[in-house]
Structure formats: structure tokens, C-alpha cells
């Protein structure tokens, strides 16, 4: 019988080939796609997230784990769709207007995907009205705003104001090197994530 713990370990190690092989094997043995996702892939990425927060692993390890998960997801996604398994929630993530930094934003995207969210990455230097437009189009329930510069932090404020003004019913979290919980509260964000792994915790807290 396929070993979902071994699949989780393959994701933790960032072993793409092994992740794909074990996913196929599990599905072939009739294990439900939801169980493969949760007990294999998400379980593996969950461990990576915990280790990242504890400074036991760093960005390169997270990236290769996320890539292993992504390859396995390509096998798994059609099966999930056929079985009617919905993602945890829809999230949309972007770096705010005037800011070109994408490493932090990309990590958040990967970690959210790794936790079972459907994530749309709308890139960097995103204007407030584009956020509004994309949220409307995707019906995202969770929105993540990233900024790395002190000078682009005010664009977060403007983006949140635009989203609120458009009357969109979504939870907004913010993050990035200069951002703090105090700033998040000040501009009316629903949550603040200190790092990519914490972004998953914040996003999950929105679902409760």
C-alpha cells in the first residue's frame, strides 16, 4: 500500500520525482485524492512551514518543497476536480503599486498553495484598481498585499481603501519587511503575517 508519510517526506525533501511517483501510486491504489492531498502533500508542506518559522530551513528549501508539491498537484488536480473536492478557499496575492519585490510574495503564494488554498498570483507593482478588478473576477475570499519598501507601504493603505470602497467581501492580510502589526491595524487590514508560513496561519484564521 502506498505510503502517504513517504509522500510527505518527499515533499519535505523537495524530491520532485519521488513526490510524483508516490502520488500516482497512491491514486492507483484507490486512495481518495482528498486524502492524498491532505495526508501527503499538505502534511509535507505543513512540516516545511513549521521548520521555516523555526529557522530550521530557509527559502531555498521551501522553494524546492513547493516545486515538488506543484509537480504532484499536476497529477492530483484533475482527480480532485472529478471528485468535486473544493480548495480550502480562494486567495489572491500581489505586491502593491510602486514595489517590484516578489520573493516574499512568491513564498506566500507557495505556502498558501501548499496549505490547500487556491491562489492567484497577480504579480508586482499592482495598482489598487487592478486589485479590485481581479478580486471581483476571481471572487477571492482572502487577499494578500506585499510591500518591501517603507515608501510603498502607503500603497497598501490605498489598496485596502479601494477594496473596501468597492464593497468587496474579502479578508485582507498584509506583510513585508517594513510592515508591522501596528501598521496593519492602523490601515484596517484584517491580518498581518510576519513571514510566509505565518501567512498560512492568518489565512486559516479567516476561515473560522
Amino acid at each position, binding site marked *: 500500500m502506498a505510503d502517504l508519510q513517504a509522500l510527505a517526506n518527499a515533499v519535505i525533501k523537495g524530491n520532485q520525482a519521488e513526490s510524483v511517483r508516490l502520488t500516482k501510486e497512491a491514486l492507483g491504489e484507490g486512495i481518495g485524492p482528498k486524502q492524498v492531498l491532505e495526508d501527503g502533500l499538505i502534511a509535507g508542506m505543513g512540516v516545511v512551514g513549521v521548520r521555516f518559522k523555526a529557522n530550521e530551513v530557509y*527559502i531555498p528549501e521551501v522553494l524546492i518543497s513547493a516545486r515538488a508539491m506543484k509537480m504532484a498537484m499536476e497529477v492530483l488536480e484533475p482527480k480532485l476536480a472529478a471528485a468535486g473536492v473544493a480548495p480550502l478557499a480562494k486567495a489572491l496575492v500581489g505586491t502593491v503599486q510602486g514595489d517590484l519585490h516578489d520573493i516574499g510574495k512568491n513564498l506566500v503564494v507557495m505556502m498558501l498553495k501548499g496549505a490547500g488554498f487556491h491562489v492567484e498570483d497577480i504579480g508586482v507593482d499592482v495598482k489598487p484598481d487592478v486589485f479590485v478588478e481581479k478580486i471581483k473576477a476571481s471572487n477571492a475570499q482572502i487577499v494578500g498585499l506585499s510591500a518591501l519598501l517603507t515608501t510603498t507601504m502607503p500603497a497598501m493603505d490605498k489598496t485596502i481603501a479601494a477594496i473596501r470602497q468597492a464593497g468587496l467581501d474579502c479578508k485582507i492580510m498584509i506583510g513585508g519587511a*517594513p510592515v508591522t502589526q501596528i501598521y496593519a491595524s492602523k490601515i484596517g487590514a484584517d491580518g498581518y503575517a510576519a513571514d510566509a508560513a505565518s501567512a498560512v496561519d492568518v489565512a486559516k484564521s479567516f476561515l473560522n
Partner: protein
Amino acid sequence: MTGKERVKKAFRCEPTDYVPWVPFVGCHGGALLKINAQDYLKSSEFIVKGVREAIRRYRPDGIPVLFDLQVEAEVLGCDLKWASNNPPAVVNHPLSNGTKLEQLQIPAADQGRIKIALDAARQLRHEHPDIALYGLITGPFTLALHLLGTDLFMQMFDESSYIKKLLDFSGQVSQSMSRYYIEAGCDVIAMVDPMTSQIGPQQFAEFVTPCVTRIFESIRQQGALSSFFVCGHAQQNIPVMCGCRPDNISVDENIPLDYVRDECLTKNISFGGNLQLTSVLLLGDEIDAQKNAIACMEVAGQKGFILAPGCDLPYDTPIKNLEAIAPVVRDSYKRQVVMTMAARSDEDDRLNLKEYGQADKVIVDIITLDSEACAPCQYMVDAVKKVVPEFEGIVEWREHKIKYRESIVFMASLMVRNVPTICIDGQITFVSRIPPRDELIAAIQKRINEKFRMRIHQKKASLYVLDGGDEKTAMVRERIAQAVQELGAEVQIETINDPDTIYSYGVTPGQTPAVVMAQYQLKSLKQVPEVVVIKEWLKNI
């Protein structure tokens, strides 16, 4: 000891008279000249002017020529997106767009903005021989990321030998840049490699240590000093950074300074940092900046420490915040004042002293640390003490020692921010300056004259004619009316017939007609005066 000597001694962990202060002025130099970051970072003339202005205002011991980690990347083919109030950002990466590593050449000293930086370095060296000049170079890992993009992280696993070759190349670029800056006269080469904060110590040791160690060794051989700058959450890498044998490690507020101190000093490496860039220097005030500087110095201790911001100063960093730092670095007395004031009260605790100074006497308040313990405070108190008797009782003076909480509240309420300060009737008059006798007398006299004028304008009165039924009452009223008219005085005249009210003035009906005068003085409007203020009024009764 010159600034340069001070920085050099600190780098060698030798004793200094005070901690050297090195503000990392990059695009902020543009703000000092009121021009945008793009114009500033593209002109050696502006860079020289900006650094010159920073030296004049911030009184540093050392300063970088330029803080821009995109200079080398731009020459090597990265496109930049320029901003008005930030350094430029790299927007594409040649090695991920078809360029081969073998095609890249080590930049020459006259290429692109390298020439601008070196011209500025030579000019600044000529103008400021006594300041430690820092040449900033992009660290190999950060430069490699500029060249390849974030694929670098995964390729550390997938194609580690290629990444090692890339880092070897970017290390050679850093080494050449360090040579150019040393030849242009820089004393310190600061290798800035912030992206190493994204990797762990094992990867650091495998990929970064070999090329970086070579760079520091080459700087040493050229007789210059080296500093390894990192910013972000890079605490995990401090031990491996020390292993690369730089002369100094500089960190930002993400890493506890005591940790860096302990790691570095045991290996005889000096260290620097970690003034808070955003929350204090950019968004705080001068007092916040001074408190933060003192906190850094207290944690760091005297040995082998350079006080500096965590990284490139933001363009809009308030000038006054940076100007406030040199005084507390150089003067232990100023540090003591700031620390005492650190316990200053919140806005809520402040007294409403709007009406302070309305008493008949002129009040001279001297806010001191303690005139028995601090010389400037003592001289200021003495100056006031000597002058006051000349006013023969109409001037009172008081000392407020801010070692007591009520004095701190009083000081904050009067908006006093420096010690010692003289306030005359609540107005800040002499700040940190002992006034010459004549000047002090003139200031007090000016206030006496003001009060005199005010009193004439403010006074209103009522005259009560106590009428016990005597026929002379009408005559009294007539004469009062005539006097008021002739003087143009603002006086109300009222006739009182009620025997009880007449008695209340201590007059019997047999003593009428009598005249009682009551003077009124407006003391406060639409507010609740503090008890201390009311007491001042009552003393005049």
C-alpha cells in the same frame, strides 16, 4: 583623534574616546540637496555635494561615498527601474534572458556609474582627509541574484556547480570593485550582501564563504579595512560570517546587537549597527533617535563598536533625527539628559500651563538635570540667582531638577526639550545657553514691561456706593461719574441699599455714604485651570 582614526581603532577593537558614528547616507543625500534619488545617484557632483552636506549636518566619523547595490548589476546588463525616493530596482536578469555567464566581463573602473562613484570618492577623499570613507560594494550573493533572478535559490540544489561558478564570478566583480574604491582613497570596503539573509548557515558556508573570504583577504592585503553588511533576519549566519574573517560585521535591527557583540568580539572582530531605520529614524523624532542611539551604545559597549543605521537611510529620513545623534555620541552629559527624559510623562500627564505666568511677580524657572551635579546647570542657576535680587522682590526663581517626576511633568508641560533651559513666566527663553547678565536682565525686564501693559488693559473694576438713606449719596455718585468720565476708565457704578449687604462690607448704616471698590482680573477662559496655576493667582490676594 580624527573620525578616521576613531573608526580605524574601533575596527581593530582598540579603545576610542567615544563610539564612532557612521550614517549610511545613500539616496538620502538627494533629499539633503532637495533633488530626486535618480538625479542624485547618477551624478558624481551631486553625490559629493550630498555627502558634504551630510558631513556638515551629521558630524560623522565615517561615511559611505554611495549606497546603491545596483551599480555593478547595471554595468553587467541588468535593467533598472528608477524611483524618485528610492534606489533603483533591478527589473530583469541577464542570465535568465539568454545571456551566458561566460559572456559577462568584470566591469572596468570607468564603466557606467562605477566611474561616477569613483570620481565622487576621489573628490571626497581630497575634501575630507579626516573622515573614514566607506566604499560600498555589492556582495557576491546579492549580485548573483541580480544577474540570475530568484531561480538561483532552486539552482543551488539543481545545478550547484553552475551557481558556484556564478558566485565565483560575482566575487571577482566584488574584488575588483573593492580595489577600485581603495585606489580612489577609501579606508573601508563595506561588502553589502543582504540577500544572504535568505539562506541558512550550511548553504552560506558552501556557496558564499569561499568567494567572500577571498575578498576580505584581498582587502586586508591592500591595507584597507573590511566590513560585512547584512540586513534582514540573518542571525543564523553571524557565526559563518565571522568565519569569513572580515574586520567588522554590521547588522540591522532584525538581529539583537548583544548577540552580534558576543559572537564578534570573541573572534576579535568589530561590529556595528543597529539604529532602527523605519520605526525610529524615519517615523520617530529626535528624542526617539537619541534614545535608540544610546540604547545601541549601552548594549554594544565601548569596544569595537561602530554606531550606524541598520542599512541605507531612507530618502525621507528627517534631517533633525540624524542631527540629534552626534551630540549624544560625543557627550556623556547629553546622554544622561536624554536617559532621564526617557521617563518623561505622556501627553495625558501634562499640566495645562496656558495661564502660567499671570501672577504679579515674574517667575523664572530653570529646568536642570541637577545644579549640584552638572556644571552647565550650575552656571545657569548661578546666573539667575545673581540677577534676581536686582528686581527687589518682583522676580522669583525656581529650579526644577528633572530627576524628580513632577519636574519632568512640568518640563514636558512647558514643551522644554533641552536641559538646562530658562523659562520666564512659562516661556522658553534660553535653551542650553547661559545668558550673559545683561541679556538675562533685559529678558526679565521685557517680561515685567509686558505684564505692566497687560495689567492696564486687563483691569476692570466696580464701585459700590453704599447708600444708608443719606442725602450725600447722590453727591458721591455724581462725583464718581465725573471722575470716571474724565479718566475714561472702565468702571461700573452700583448703588447698594440693602442693609445686610452694606453690613457685609463691614459698614454700618451710620457710616454711609461709603464707597467700596472691587477690581476684577480675567484669569482664564473656557478651561479648567490647574491647581498650581490657581495658587499663583491666589498669592496676589
